[in-house]
């Protein structure tokens, strides 16, 4: 029983970072119907932004703000350099995938050039070493903070999308770019804002996971991209609440399959599941709330 509860705690804290990252991926898809393969690089970038900020002695919340802003700026950069031009030229949708992956590679190369290929770690903080034992279940303060920050980011995104004027604009563009233009929504700026939000979420997830595993490296984004794609398949492409649920689900699946099945087949179970879901329920497990265009 205590193993079960312990895995539940671990799975939820891991899943919350997956959820934060996947929300960004799915948001881009919901609005533009594309997969931005550079999200993994923004994730890596965010981890480094947060790391540098922490090393400069900024307190953790400010470092997180730096990671958010840094990731967001990278996201905007990808829109300005690649996707905007591709849309204007009417290029095939495949081109966005190839170009965003090339951008990701550039950024990985750049990160190696600047920060080196060595794995780096966040400055140790005594605060984060605190943990409690409740009925044989060890809960780290770090896990609690991660979960709270993730929930805060989810609530923030929900608020932005549902209540703010920029959120209304994003939802209109997601529904139909033409409709948005007719009702006077500035489509270009709205898409730019979407890329900022998605990049910021990826950057925040980078700092969160960098803290959870205490590893920051130029290559951390590639694995995360795979996880992000997995989650948005689970949740349904373009479905933000689905991405949250899918993120927690993937975190739990991974942790429990390590504990109860075999550590080696951890990922196989996740991907096998995706394959089945795609065939049985291609709109994701949580189809219903549809953010994507008709």
């Amino acid at each position, binding site marked *: 029983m205590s193993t079960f509860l312990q895995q539940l705690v671990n799975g939820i804290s891991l899943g919350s970072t997956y959820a934060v990252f996947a929300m960004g991926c799915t948001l881009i*898809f919901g609005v533009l*119907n594309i*997969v931005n*393969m550079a999200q993994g690089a923004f994730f890596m970038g965010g981890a480094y932004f947060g790391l540098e900020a922490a090393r400069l002695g900024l307190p953790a919340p400010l470092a997180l703000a730096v990671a958010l802003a840094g990731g967001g700026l990278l996201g905007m950069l990808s829109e300005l*350099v*690649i996707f905007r*031009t*591709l849309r204007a*030229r*009417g*290029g*095939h949708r*495949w*081109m966005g*995938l*190839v*170009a965003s*992956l*090339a*951008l*990701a*590679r*550039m*950024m*990985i*190369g*750049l990160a*190696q*050039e600047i920060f080196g290929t060595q794995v780096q770690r966040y400055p140790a903080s005594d605060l984060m070493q605190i943990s409690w034992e409740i009925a044989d279940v060890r809960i780290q303060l770090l896990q609690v903070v991660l979960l709270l920050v993730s929930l805060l980011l989810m609530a923030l995104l929900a608020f932005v999308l549902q209540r703010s004027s920029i959120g209304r604009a994003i939802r209109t563009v997601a529904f139909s770019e033409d409709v948005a233009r007719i009702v006077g929504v500035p489509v270009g700026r709205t898409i730019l804002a979407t890329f900022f939000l998605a990049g910021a979420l990826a950057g925040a997830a980078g700092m969160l996971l960098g803290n959870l595993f205490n590893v920051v490296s130029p290559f951390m984004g*590639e694995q995360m*991209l*795979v996880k992000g*794609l*997995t989650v948005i*398949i689970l949740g349904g*492409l373009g479905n933000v609440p689905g991405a949250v649920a899918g993120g927690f689900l993937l975190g739990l699946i991974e942790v429990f399959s390590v504990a109860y099945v075999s550590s*080696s*087949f951890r*990922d*196989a179970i996740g*991907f*096998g599941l*995706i*394959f089945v879901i*795609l*065939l049985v329920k*291609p709109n994701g497990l949580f189809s219903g709330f549809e953010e994507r265009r008709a």
Partner: protein
Amino acid sequence: MSAWISQFFASYSNIIDLCLLNSLVGYGLFLALSANMFSLATGGFMALGAYCSVYCTMELGFPFAPAVFAGALLAALGAAAIGAPVLRLRGDYFMLATFAFTEVIRVIALNWDSVTGGAIGIFSIPRHTETWHLALAVAVVIYVAYTLRRSYFGRAIAAVKQDDVVAQSMGVNVFMHRLSLFIASGFICGAAGALAAHLNYFIGPGDFGLVRSVDALTYPILGGVNALAGPLIGAIFTTLLPEALRFSNQLREILMGALVVAIVLYLPGGAMSVFKLRWFGVRAGETKLAAATEQAQS
């Protein structure tokens, strides 16, 4: 002169092999793309071909050619098995399902230690692949693609790519056409995986992931998905350029990334479209205009 040529081949044979191998994979993807299948299954197909052929040569003592064939056949079977359900999915779900397939194969390769060597991979694979094997394979694939394009099959595929409703209405069994191209793509990628395994002495699960699959897509897309020479040009370009740029690894990655972005942005039809632009300068604009008026009228 002949001494010069043999020296040339001696010093560049590795890079020539790599160009040919990537071209082969590029043509595998070219076939899939020609029916609008944005497949990320390449890594999975190559892994199937590579592990199967290595098992055949090293464990079962097969000669090289049947082993390569067995690997290609297994990949084709894999394509047939996943193709039937996956091809019914819409565009993006198709891409993601093929991605999931590649990851499933990679994870199996990572864990089935007795056959795949697990995370460590398989070392000291006998080197059987020769440059002419690769050249022959590329030549055969180009011949097949060239001949098919000019046949009723090629016309049907072109219609499937542009408008599958029209294709169906003219009696084209769209599903079977796409499935057969997907299987052919699996066969070619499987053969490429088998040839690669017997070229590099080593295979490991890391060789066949998402990056491999996207790289493979890059060749035909950069070279041009409408020109027969597209995958060859794209593969040679993306293989030679990093060699030509003798910078640090990181700087090379950055420059390669920038170049790919530039090509995608400024030559959206792929590198081969340069020639088309020159020959049919007006055409692209006119087609767009026609499409626009058609939309306005319908």
